[in-house]
């Protein structure tokens, strides 16, 4: 097969610092060369070369300071010199003696003016005229092995066409164009669609799908009545009411938070809290409630900071939106600054391409994508965009976290978040910090003395204490910086900014940060998806805005398809493409390709309105089907690919918890200010912030529960909450005994059962059959069947007999029986399954 294979050859050169191209081998000005030769080189030779040069006695810490390249790449602890960045330059940290674990030269501290020369030099960009002969060996090259034109033939990269609405359908069944596509397949496969679901099933389904909450018995009652009078009208009215309720945004927002791998801590080893992440959570919920066009929603999350804003409030909104790129998992204890930067960018590429394009572009970090037409050069074209941006995620500075960044102050008027801190507390913290600082200084002095007198053991002992002090000071600093002088929390946000001097990325051979090709890939997008409206990226911008523009272009064949497929799966439990986050060749093909295209085209026609598209889907005949089982159909299509009935679906973790709170009258529908993580503040999970501090019980909706990575609340984790470390378009469903134990014995369920019993008896004063009936209504949206009534009576009788045998006082026994009855309903299968 003779296919066109573009070949890029990159001559091998040396390590070129990629983050800051100014430090590359380039012509230095006379002034720069002079500065280096006069101030820096003599100091290096005098104070450092003895241990850090190839010619020296012996090389310590793997660090060589006698060449430009090795100074930049650094030694075992990380890069010694990071141009323009004092904080990241370990050489500077060492010579200032700020950190007792790294004091260089070890035997004496440099004169202040020498230190300030190094400071100035790094701030100048560390101009370094030293040159070294290239290493022996083959040139580093990158060869593209992918034929992109051929790759375009794959269905997902072809533009969706507006299909003709099929006419070979069951005319009595179809209501909407959607139904035509479904009905056509029924005919082709010899399937008969299930009858419409009854009114109670339908209102329950709508309620959970659109708000994540059960319908109240009053709502069920009035819907059934309206449904009997005029079914279509009743459904349309109910749908409108549910879409307009603020709970819609909480429900759909939570779906999106799965995709956005939303969490309020950095995860991995260090797990620093993100006390400002909740702003993004609220932004997502508000966006769904406002029915923000999806293209705008995407634009804001990738490049909100670069969009014009009409008001301070909008500016704040746009800033918060970019938290999307900042809330990912981070290995904050990574010593190598370049490695950290590339890992960060990788996470951003991975999340962005999967969330919006269901494309696993991150596979092309170390080699061309093995299955999809995405060469490494595409990956690094996007990497340049994110490398040219600054990711601001905050976190407290500590020895295990040298990666802390600033946050973005929001314009005045933005919601200030969690409660005011008493001034006394902040003043107290200031004092604590001062004391810590004082002690730290003493410890440092003592260490220096110990070291000088050769008492290494003592020095090691002190080191631990020093670390503890430094960490506590770091945390105190971050907390103090988060409040204004009156104790009000400053409105701060995570998010993105453009670097002042953007640049293109090199390709890293095998993904190795110290193995770059010489040439750079112009910033750009995934080539297999070409749109005619792509905007060029100018030299002075990162390209995020253009990236967002390319993703949201109506010509992009993936974006609309991927999003309508997500919506479909949120309403049916399965996508039209079942591999929700992977539209590539290892993913599934659509079960209804034309329906997928129809919906994608329709979304754009509706100006990317989520609510309108949802409205059309849930008023279709397809959505309305019952889940009734049919043996012969099941034999033909057990996984219901052809949608011959509704899927029976388990409620997700949030809906189970919210329902338990709702039926017991305990659910608080307010939105809390901030979250329990923002209340706990900056720090490290499992170190100064403990599990019970974050996961204390609340009655807010589950979407507002604190989500610290590695510490997902039990009520969510047990019922298959999405792992917040990874983007997740679809949750797993497990049925395991630990769920049964939770329903049988957990304090949360017992408490709600008690509250439900008390609501039924005390609040609405029910007894006997009425009480039983209302309890079933609350939990199942229907009255008990005769069989269930009978068994309930038997249960109460039997319970009371056994309780009496055990010597429980009658009144207590009755109460316990009632509570246990309520608990049984909450724990039963129907409570957590939609028909």
């Amino acid at each position, binding site marked *: 097969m003779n296919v066109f294979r573009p070949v890029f050859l990159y001559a091998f050169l040396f390590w070129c610092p990629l983050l800051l191209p100014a430090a590359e081998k380039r012509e230095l000005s006379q002034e720069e060369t002079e500065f280096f030769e006069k101030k820096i080189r003599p100091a290096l030779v005098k104070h450092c070369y003895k241990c850090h040069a190839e010619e020296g006695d012996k090389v310590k810490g793997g660090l060589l300071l006698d060449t430009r390249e090795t100074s930049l790449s650094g030694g075992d602890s990380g890069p010694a010199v990071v141009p323009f960045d004092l904080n990241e330059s370990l050489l500077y940290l060492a010579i200032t003696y700020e950190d007792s674990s790294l004091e260089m030269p070890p035997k004496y501290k440099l004169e202040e003016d020498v230190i300030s020369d190094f400071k100035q030099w790094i701030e100048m960009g560390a101009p370094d005229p030293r040159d070294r002969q290239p290493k022996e060996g083959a040139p*580093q090259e990158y060869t593209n092995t992918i034929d992109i034109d051929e790759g375009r033939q794959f269905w997902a990269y072809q533009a969706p066409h507006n299909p003709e609405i099929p006419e070979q359908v069951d005319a009595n069944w179809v209501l909407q164009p959607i139904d035509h596509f479904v009905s056509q397949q029924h005919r082709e496969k010899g399937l008969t669609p299930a009858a419409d679901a009854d009114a109670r099933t339908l209102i329950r389904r709508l309620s959970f799908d659109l708000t994540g909450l059960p319908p109240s018995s009053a709502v069920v009652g009035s819907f059934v009545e309206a449904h009997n009078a005029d079914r279509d009208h009743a459904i349309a009215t109910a749908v409108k009411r549910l879409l307009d309720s603020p709970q819609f945004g909480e429900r759909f927002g939570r779906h999106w938070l799965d995709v956005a791998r939303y969490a309020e801590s950095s995860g991995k080893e260090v797990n620093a809290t993100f006390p400002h992440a909740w702003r993004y959570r609220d932004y997502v919920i508000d966006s769904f409630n406002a029915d923000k066009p999806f293209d705008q929603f995407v634009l804001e999350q990738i490049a909100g900071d670069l969009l014009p804003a009409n008001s301070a409030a909008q500016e704040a909104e746009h800033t918060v939106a970019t938290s999307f790129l900042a809330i990912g998992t981070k290995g904050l204890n990574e010593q190598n600054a370049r490695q950290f930067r590339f890992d960060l960018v990788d996470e951003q590429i991975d999340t962005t391409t999967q969330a919006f394009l269901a494309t696993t572009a991150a*596979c092309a970090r170390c080699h061309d994508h093995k299955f999809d037409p995405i060469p490494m050069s595409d990956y690094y074209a996007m990497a340049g965009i994110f490398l040219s941006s600054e990711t601001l995620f905050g976190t407290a500075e500590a020895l295990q976290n040298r990666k802390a960044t600033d946050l973005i102050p929001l314009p005045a008027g933005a919601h200030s978040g969690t409660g005011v801190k008493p001034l006394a507390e902040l003043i107290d913290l200031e004092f604590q910090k001062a004391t810590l600082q004082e002690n730290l200084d003493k410890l440092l002095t003592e260490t220096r003395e110990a070291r000088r007198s050769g008492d290494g053991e003592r020095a090691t002992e002190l080191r631990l204490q020093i670390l503890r002090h430094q960490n506590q000071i770091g945390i105190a600093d971050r907390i103090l910086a988060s409040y204004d002088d009156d104790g009000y929390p400053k409105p701060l946000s995570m998010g993105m900014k453009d670097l002042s001097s953007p640049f293109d990325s090199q390709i890293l051979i095998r993904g190795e940060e110290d193995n770059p090709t010489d040439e750079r890939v112009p910033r750009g997008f995934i080539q297999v998806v070409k749109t005619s409206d792509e905007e060029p990226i100018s030299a002075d911008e990162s390209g995020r805005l253009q990236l967002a523009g390319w993703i949201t272009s109506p010509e992009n064949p993936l974006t609309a398809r991927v999003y309508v497929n997500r919506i479909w799966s949120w309403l049916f439990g399965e996508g039209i493409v079942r591999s929700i986050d992977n539209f590539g060749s290892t993913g599934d093909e659509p079960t209804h390709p034309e329906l997928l295209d129809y919906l994608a085209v329709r979304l754009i026609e509706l100006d990317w309105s989520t609510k309108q598209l949802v409205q059309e889907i849930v008023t279709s005949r397809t959505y309305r089907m019952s889940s009734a089982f049919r043996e012969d159909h*099941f034999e033909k299509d057990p996984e219901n690919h052809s949608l011959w009935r509704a899927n029976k679906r388990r409620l997700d973790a949030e809906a189970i918890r919210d329902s338990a709170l709702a039926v017991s009258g305990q659910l608080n529908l307010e939105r809390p200010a901030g979250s329990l993580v923002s209340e706990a503040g900056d720090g490290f999970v499992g170190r100064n912030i403990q599990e019970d501090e974050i996961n204390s019980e609340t009655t807010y909706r589950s979407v507002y529960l604190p989500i610290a990575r590695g510490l997902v609340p039990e009520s969510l984790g047990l019922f298959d909450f999405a792992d917040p470390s990874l983007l997740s378009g679809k949750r797993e469903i497990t*049925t395991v*005994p630990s769920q049964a134990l939770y329903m049988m014995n957990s*304090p949360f369920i017992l408490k709600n059962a008690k509250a439900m019993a008390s609501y039924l008896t005390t609040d609405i004063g029910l007894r006997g059959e009425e009480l039983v009936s209302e309890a079933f209504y609350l939990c199942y949206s229907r009255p008990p069947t005769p069989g269930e009534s009978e068994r309930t009576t038997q249960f109460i009788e039997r*319970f009371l007999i056994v309780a009496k045998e055990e010597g429980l006082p009658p009144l207590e026994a009755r109460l316990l029986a009632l509570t246990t009855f309520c608990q049984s309903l909450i724990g039963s299968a*129907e409570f957590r399954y939609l028909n």
Partner: protein
Amino acid sequence: MMKNTPLFQPSRRQVLQSASSGFGYLAFSALSSLATQKSFGSNLNPLAPKAPHFAGTAKRVIFMAMQGAPSHVDTFDYKPQLTKDTGQDAKGYAKLLGSPFEFKQHGQSGLPISSLFPHLAKHADDLCIINSMHTDLPNHPQATTQMHTGNFQFVRPSMGAWTLYGLGTENDSLPGFITLSPPNGAQNYGSAFLPAIYQGTPIGKQARNRFVSQEARDAVQNIRNPQLSKELQRVQLDYVKSLNTEKLARDQYHPDVEGIIESYELAFRMQDELPEVMNLSDEPASVQALYGLNDRTTGAFAQQCIKARRLAEAGVRFIQINHGNWDHHRNLKGGLEQNCAEIDQPIAALLEDLKQRDMLKDTLVIWAGEFGRTPHGQNGNGRDHNNKGYSLWMAGGGVQGGLRYGATDDYGYQAIENKVHIHDWHATILHTLGLDHKNLTYQYAGRDFRLTDVHGDVVKGILS
């Protein structure tokens, strides 16, 4: 046709309506057989012990899964040529990287094992090392799924679920398939289309979760009811069961509801049994010391190993324990030293302990990652993914000890001799359990499925 199905026969109805009928009878409902299954024998309890296809050599499995793909050339695949040629050009202009660890021969068999496993090396004569493993993809998620289920593309039952389906379990008060502190990815212990009761039960939070206290990690949550006696709770659960049974009858076919019914019954019995099995305080000090239970480095994995032994003793059929952080793209030396120090002593202790209890002979112990690593270096001191050749070992349960089976090329890039694919490995595991992988099938969506799909050959050469 519907009327012919046994659902509407009186016996079925009686069964469904009898709230106190036997455990797990629902998995045998006629309707699940629509989906569904070939039975082994006539017992109504889907977890009751079932006769194997033929006499096996292993009764149970302890599977130690190493997440992240441990390097084979630094552990169990001795490559002197690689050491010799270290620094030479390899594929893609990378340089070959000889192992920084020394290999020595151990035991009477003289198996070469690297210096990373001083304790385990003492058991060389028990180990059956397969050096010629290979798998389809060099990506963690897919390869991990393939290791557990045989298939990386579709949702398929895990090998623990197949084992339980094939053999049932010997203790109906504990789940027959337990995975201790599993990493994310329920599919890896899932039952897919097999009845939900065959799914693995995860116990304990992630072993390396440093964000919760040790007690919280170990505690079995919600294991006691604070307000109901056992008898009253039984009355309650009979009621819950009656509600669920009625729903199941209405829904006709609903495996998840069957799963819920069975999980309640199991949970009820677990309340007594599980805390006892998981409580390690009654282990003698000598045993605790053998495993390194109270040592900072070995403690966490020692916990898992002792629990695995206790669960095995209690009759659990398939026990998986997990260890992570093997993805050494960088810092290979330090990373391996740390990881191996954590697991070496506990694993050696587990083999020793099983042997002393005369259980090693019928317990198949497996140590495996999802693939191996490249003989060339990456990022200086690291290695990239390699699926074409890697190593794992097994011990006990009828595999030959002191055996080095198969081989990779001189450097360890590819399996070249007696290659063993994941399907072959799965077939062999089932074989030791007395199950013919070609006959362990489950009918779903109109065809018979099996763990090995249409592949797999039993690796006869490793059987004792």
